[in-house]
């Protein structure tokens, strides 16, 4: 009897790679990170490889570092592997040339992903692997989860046999993240492929002083060429080796693969050639079309390098007349995409009697859907007398006119496959429940199962769509469900946002989680939904899953409840059997977390069935609920027509012409989203408020705004608009308002947590309190709109060193999609308030680049004059250099502008020129005046005809001071970007570096960085980090001319403000290391600022400023360590869970963490003492708590 498991592609591959390796070097990158995470987790659990030893798993500082370690491990005779994708693979290329040039067997497993070009994409295509095709590596492509597992083995085995390194790749997300039921490979099968002789040869070739050899020589023109040609026989033999390996694999498993695998009519005339998951969709479509009498086929390319032309040509039916070669990549300016060119060359060299017509096309970039309709369109193109060549499929190209039209409605979804689509929010556990359901069905029935999950790009209030298929045969549909038997909407609000029932088949089943009872729910449905239910004659079920979950103790996690509903109505398993399976699964999944967690879920199972009701719809519509109009309708045309469409989920329909050719987009756009994700929003109490400004300062989403204004601006205010007398003496006689943007708030509650004012009659109330949003939405929307019409305070009149006043500055970073309660964004907002109207920001890839610029919108905003931060992301690893480039460029252009100005001073006016050239621009007033002067200068330049005037005009704005900010997380600053950062620190140039230090790779899901503190549990540090955190600030201080500040807004906000002002004012390199609490810490995000304070009070985080120009450069601004560090550590799950997972290790590491903190404190005290002769370090008087 066959054994089956249900898992995703990453786990399937990692399972094989782990068992066949001794050294595994890892580094996180989407979508390959889980492979490294599995390897690290297994190693930390002591899981053995095939030789009964635990592989050495090591996290490196970058993919380049991982490749280097693998290279070294291979040279010293170990079986080594790594996992990566995208830019990470690019960083490995130099080592890949070396590894191949030295004929060293290894396998790199790649979850193939797009490369950053006009924009970054985390999604799947072959751009990355295609960039390595010249390295000399063999390249083996798998098309499904089953194949990914199988080819992982074939690649390792063939590499050992052939001595060629193998790149084993599969489609990022579509295969890496698809959950499928597959036949696993047991150790005995793996063992059959391990040739110990080859391993002995590898060992024998290893570097050893016992039989010394020399590698990596420098070779001259006389012999390099000959040396390069020595490897040819290995490449000639490789295809045969892989073929033999595949044949042996077939003998042992029954699964026969071919290097170039043809499927279709034996006498097919039209053929599609491609590789990757799309080949399975073509396979499925070929079956459907041939069943209709067509003669079509598909050649799946397994071994892409070395490309065996003869075997490829032999795979084609002799009847072949036309071939479409599909590439999932783009190579601008080439004669054609890589696979196309290889096929053309192969056919040309084959000396066939009659060459088939060959065309090439691009499809599926960045996981663009590739559907049977598109496949059909490609075949139809081949039927044309003059088929379009170099076409695209899946988009509408109204610029280059490359695209093929396709009939969206064409569907071949098999009748024997059950299809279900689930709409949920990230926070409700929908995806987790569906993964669980797939496992249950996969393991309890004979059905094959497939799950694929679509996430949106927001980190707060994110939506998920789950696509589940179950059927009697392996599922080849590598595209989203087009016709569903069942649709479940786990959040009623999604009915307003999406056409949830678009995909449901007539007669299908619709499950809705709703607070309304069965008899009243109908009138609460949008009219569109009612219409669809009636038109499609749907069976309609409702449950109040939130209530059942709440009453079962599950809180907001309604996943178990809705999972039970699914099984109750989906008819994929007998109900009792399904319920029993769910219960068993609950015990298995949650058993180790405690009996309470098991019981809580079991209670939910029991309660669910009693609260699931079928609704009999009335015969006609009676709903009055219309879908709310999009806020983008009020936006400028581009934002409305492009961003609005993307936001509405219609981005796939946008034509090429809608997109900018160079990846340049407008800012100031997050304001149009109006996501309305907050259940509660803060409401201001004018009577209690002390007008300190802290609520606005900490608001991670910039939804709390303050204005001080003349009373006349209240004349037309809405009735509920709040205002009171301003308390600051300098604002005497003016009015004061704190206004919340109700539709942009995420409801994190941080503002309430930090509010220091309390209601004197009810101490639980503060000056700002959380109140349910829906009843307030309309009134507060009007108030917000009105608030925006009140003029901003003149920046020159604001005392920016005082938070109360400084918070009047308009944030030019607003409404980001960061996690609710994010600890990073308050710093960025502060930056934008202080310097945003003259800031250029180089942003390293990571959380801040994702919430900063993930389409459709950006939180980077503009003021009324149209000024605001100019933002760009280059890469993860080069951000410091990228930002330094800004500075060098700006300085050079300013210098040139000054030279031009001096040379034309007499024409432009000596007084004006002199004033511009001598302006200090040290405060807002100076900068304001300089802008006035430059405006006057530009007017004068327009009147001049000289060549130099024309040269100066476009440079004139450079004469106004610009503020360059290099922003990124700790993964960038401490690890992958550290080399460049170090160079920039040493450059002496006027750049400001802001490190948003969450002490972990947050964006990729919490992997350890060198900023991770000792004792913290993180991915790649499951047993708690053993080493102490790198002291980046101390390294920077060692240069002596770098301004360095270590801040934590939640501990001392005035200190943070002061550091930002000093850093920007310092004419040299400034580094601010900003402690940022994070969802990856396992904390209550509402009280994240308290965690920051606790971190400082316990000495976990030091507050200090190092100013090179001050007599006493170093100021230690932290209070004396007030509490044992353990008090702080136990506040955060990242530390606390170690006491549960590794109690002894926790005790040891906690003690060491205390020593770290104490020693570091003493070190800084001694540095202070050394410079001032006093061991005392006192916080600045004005900063004192």
């Amino acid at each position: 009897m066959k054994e089956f498991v249900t898992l995703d592609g990453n786990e399937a591959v990692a399972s094989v790679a782990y068992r066949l390796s001794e050294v595994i070097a890892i580094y996180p990158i989407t979508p390959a990170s889980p492979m490294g995470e599995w390897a690290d987790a297994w190693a930390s659990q002591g899981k053995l490889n095939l030789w009964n030893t635990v592989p050495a798993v090591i996290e490196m500082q970058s993919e380049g570092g991982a490749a280097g370690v693998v290279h070294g491990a291979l040279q010293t005779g170990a079986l080594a592997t790594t996992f990566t994708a995208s830019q990470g693979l690019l960083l490995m290329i130099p080592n890949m040339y070396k590894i191949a040039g030295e004929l060293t067997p290894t396998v790199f497993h790649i979850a193939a992903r797009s490369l950053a070009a006009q924009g970054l994409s985390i999604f799947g295509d072959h751009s990355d692997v295609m960039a390595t095709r010249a390295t000399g590596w063999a390249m083996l492509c798998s098309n499904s989860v089953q194949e990914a597992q199988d080819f992982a083995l074939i690649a390792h085995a063939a590499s050992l046999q052939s001595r060629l390194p193998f790149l084993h790749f599969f489609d990022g997300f579509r295969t890496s993240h698809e959950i499928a039921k597959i036949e696993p490979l047991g150790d005995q099968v793996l063992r059959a492929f391990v040739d110990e002789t080859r391993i002995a040869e590898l060992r024998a070739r290893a570097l050893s002083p016992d039989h010394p050899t020399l590698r990596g020589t420098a070779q001259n023109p006389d012999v390099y060429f000959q040396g390069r040609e020595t490897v040819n026989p290995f490449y000639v033999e490789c295809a045969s080796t892989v073929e033999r390996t595949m044949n042996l694999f077939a003998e042992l498993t029954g699964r026969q693969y071919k290097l170039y695998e043809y499927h279709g009519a034996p006498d097919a005339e039209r053929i599609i050639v491609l590789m990757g998951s799309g080949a399975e969709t073509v396979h499925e479509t070929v079956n459907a079309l041939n069943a209709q009498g067509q003669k079509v086929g598909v050649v799946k390319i397994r071994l892409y390098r070395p490309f065996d032309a003869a075997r490829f040509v032999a795979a084609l039916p002799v009847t072949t007349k036309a071939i479409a070669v599909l590439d999932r990549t783009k190579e601008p300016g080439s004669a054609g995409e890589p696979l196309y060119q290889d096929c053309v060359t192969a056919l040309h060299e084959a000396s066939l009697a009659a060459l088939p017509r060959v065309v090439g096309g691009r499809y599926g970039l960045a996981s663009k859907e590739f559907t049977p309709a598109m496949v059909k369109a490609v075949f139809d193109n081949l039927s044309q007398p003059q088929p379009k060549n170099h076409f695209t499929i899946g988009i509408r190209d109204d610029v280059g006119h490359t695209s093929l039209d396709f009939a969206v409605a064409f569907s071949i979804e098999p009748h024997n496959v059950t299809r279900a689509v689930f709409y949920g929010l990230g926070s409700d556990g929908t995806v987790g429940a569906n993964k669980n359901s797939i496992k249950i069905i996969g393991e309890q029935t004979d059905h094959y199962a497939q799950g694929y999950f679509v996430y949106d790009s927001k980190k707060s209030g994110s939506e998920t769509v789950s696509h589940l298929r179950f059927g009697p045969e392996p599922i080849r549909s590598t595209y989203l469900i087009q016709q569903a038997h069942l649709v479940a909407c786990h959040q009623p609000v999604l009915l307003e946002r999406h056409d949830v029932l678009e995909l449901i088949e007539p007669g299908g089943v619709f499950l809705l989680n709703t607070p309304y009872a069965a008899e009243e729910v109908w009138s609460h449905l949008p009219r569109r939904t009612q219409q669809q239910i009636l038109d499609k004659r749907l069976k309609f079920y409702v449950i109040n899953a939130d209530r059942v979950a709440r009453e079962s103790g599950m809180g907001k996690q309604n996943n178990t409840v809705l999972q039970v509903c699914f099984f109750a109505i989906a008819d994929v398993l007998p109900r009792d059997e399904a319920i029993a399976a769910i219960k068993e699964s609950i015990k298995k999944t949650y058993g180790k977390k405690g009996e309470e967690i098991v019981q809580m879920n079991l209670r939910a199972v029991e309660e669910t069935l009693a609260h699931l009701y079928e609704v009999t719809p009335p015969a006609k519509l009676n709903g009055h609920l219309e879908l709310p109009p999009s806020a983008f309708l009020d936006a400028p045309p581009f934002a409305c027509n492009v961003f609005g469409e993307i936001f509405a989920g219609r981005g796939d329909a946008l034509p090429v012409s809608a997109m900018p050719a160079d990846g340049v987009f407008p800012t100031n756009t997050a304001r149009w989203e109006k996501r309305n994700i907050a259940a509660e929003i803060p409401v201001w109490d004018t009577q209690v408020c002390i007008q300190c400004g802290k609520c606005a300062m900490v608001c991670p989403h910039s939804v709390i705004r303050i204005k001080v204004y003349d009373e006349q601006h209240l004349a037309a205010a809405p009735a509920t608009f709040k205002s009171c007398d301003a308390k600051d003496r300098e604002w005497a006689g003016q009015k004061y308002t704190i206004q919340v943007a109700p539709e942009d708030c995420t409801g994190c509650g941080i503002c309430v947590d930090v509010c220091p004012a309390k209601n004197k009659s009810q101490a639980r109330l503060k000056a700002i309190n959380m109140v349910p949003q829906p009843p307030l939405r309309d009134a507060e929307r009007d108030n917000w709109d009105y608030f925006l019409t009140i003029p901003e305070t003149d920046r020159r009149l604001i005392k920016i060193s005082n938070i109360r006043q400084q918070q009047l500055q308009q944030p030019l970073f607003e409404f980001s999609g960061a996690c609710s309660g994010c600890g990073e964004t308050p710093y960025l907002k502060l930056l934008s308030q202080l310097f945003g109207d003259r800031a250029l920001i180089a942003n390293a890839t990571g959380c801040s680049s994702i919430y900063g610029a993930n389409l459709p919108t950006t939180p980077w905003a503009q003021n009324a004059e149209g000024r605001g931060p100019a933002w760009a992301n280059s890469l993860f690893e080069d951000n410091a250099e990228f930002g330094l480039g800004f500075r060098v460029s700006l300085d050079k252009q300013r210098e040139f502008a000054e030279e031009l100005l001096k040379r034309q001073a007499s024409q432009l006016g000596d007084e004006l020129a002199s004033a511009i050239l001598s302006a200090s621009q040290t405060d807002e007033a100076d900068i304001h005046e300089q802008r006035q002067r430059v405006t006057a200068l530009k007017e004068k330049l327009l009147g001049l005809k000289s060549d130099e005037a024309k040269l100066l005009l476009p440079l004139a704005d450079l004469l106004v001071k610009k503020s360059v900010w290099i922003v990124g997380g700790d993964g960038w600053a401490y690890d992958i970007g550290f080399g460049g950062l170090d160079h920039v620190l040493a450059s002496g140039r006027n750049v400001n570096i802001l490190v948003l230090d969450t002490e972990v790779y947050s964006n990729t899901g919490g992997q350890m960085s060198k900023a991770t503190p000792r004792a913290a549990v993180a991915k790649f540090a499951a047993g708690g980090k053993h080493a102490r955190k790198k002291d980046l600030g101390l390294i920077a201080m060692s240069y002596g001319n770098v301004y360095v500040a270590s801040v934590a807004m939640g501990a001392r906000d005035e200190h943070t403000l002061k550091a930002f002002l000093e850093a920007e004012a310092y004419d040299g390199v400034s580094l601010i290391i900003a402690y940022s609490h994070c969802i990856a810490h396992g904390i209550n995000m509402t009280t994240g600022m308290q965690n920051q304070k606790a971190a400082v009070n316990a000495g976990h985080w030091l507050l200090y400023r190092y100013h090179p120009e001050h007599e006493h450069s170093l100021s230690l601004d932290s209070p004396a360590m007030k509490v044992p560090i353990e008090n702080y550590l136990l506040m955060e799950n990242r530390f606390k869970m170690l006491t549960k997972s590794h109690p002894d290790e926790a005790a040891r590491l906690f003690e060491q963490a205390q020593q770290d903190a104490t020693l570091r404190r003493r070190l800084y005290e001694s540095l202070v003492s050394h410079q001032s002769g006093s061991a005392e370090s006192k916080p600045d008087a004005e900063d004192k708590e």
Partner: protein
Amino acid sequence: MSLQTNYLGMTLRTPLVVSASPLSQNLDNIKRMAEAGASAVVLYSLFEEQLMLERYELHHHLTHGADSFAEALSFFPEPEFLHFGLDAYLEHIRRAKQAVDIPIIASLNGTHVGRWTESAKRIAEAGADALELNIYSIPTDAELTGAEVEQNYLDIVAAVKEAVEIPVAVKLGPFFSSFANMAKRLDDAGADALVLFNRFYQPDFDLEALEVRTNVLFSRSSSIRLPLRWIAILYGKIRAQLAATSGVHSAIDALKLLMAGANVTMLCSVLYERGLPQIGLIERAMVEWMDKHEYVSVAQMRGSLSQLHCPDPTAYERALYVQAVHTFKPQTL
């Protein structure tokens, strides 16, 4: 001279027992307690409800934010094993037993029967010599009657007694309408000893922050008055043994409580304030006092001033309060 006493079926070298506190979380402290002369150690309390909350909390943090964003489908590695409080506590019992020769008494703290019996069984299996049930309840529900509260206590004691073979002491507060009756019913329910009294953390206000704070307030010698009275009243009237806790700071305090009828006197605040060596110093002072006053054993003095044996049994009753008030002459008003 013999300081030997009997408590929970064990013969102890002296009546000086360390009461439950976080001090015993550290194994080195337990060794130092034994070295200083403690005759037994009651381990820190295992808080059942807290353990439950911990499990919910961990589950929450391991799942919060998961499967929401394509690049970060989780934020923590999935732990292979989890050692929740009970596991760690059991391990601590085993290590303490290995580390010292004196008896180790485990302590369970909670308000409902819940999973106490299961925990109690595993504590016994781990090698604890006895178990102290610390029933910590502030009944704030206005619908809850005193009888129901008392029955809850009795149910817990009966359930635990049924579950384990080792002796069980019950530590409780004084706030019962008829404490003597409650003591007798606990005795009937099977309690092997009563530990008098639990010192509830009392709330305080921080007027600057307008917050309620629960700070640890150490006992003073004067705190022994309450246990002194009730031990003296109960001595000889119930089967269960009596342990005195709250306010034992000196040999005199201990001697008084022994004379009231306590089998053991428990130390806590004094150890926090003056260090673990105080155990030995108190013992020496007891010996000196007994020597000076020609006592030959603790057994000799136990209960000598109890209500049963004291010259004036009414001294423990309300009349004394009236008398005390009438004779009180404040220094200043």
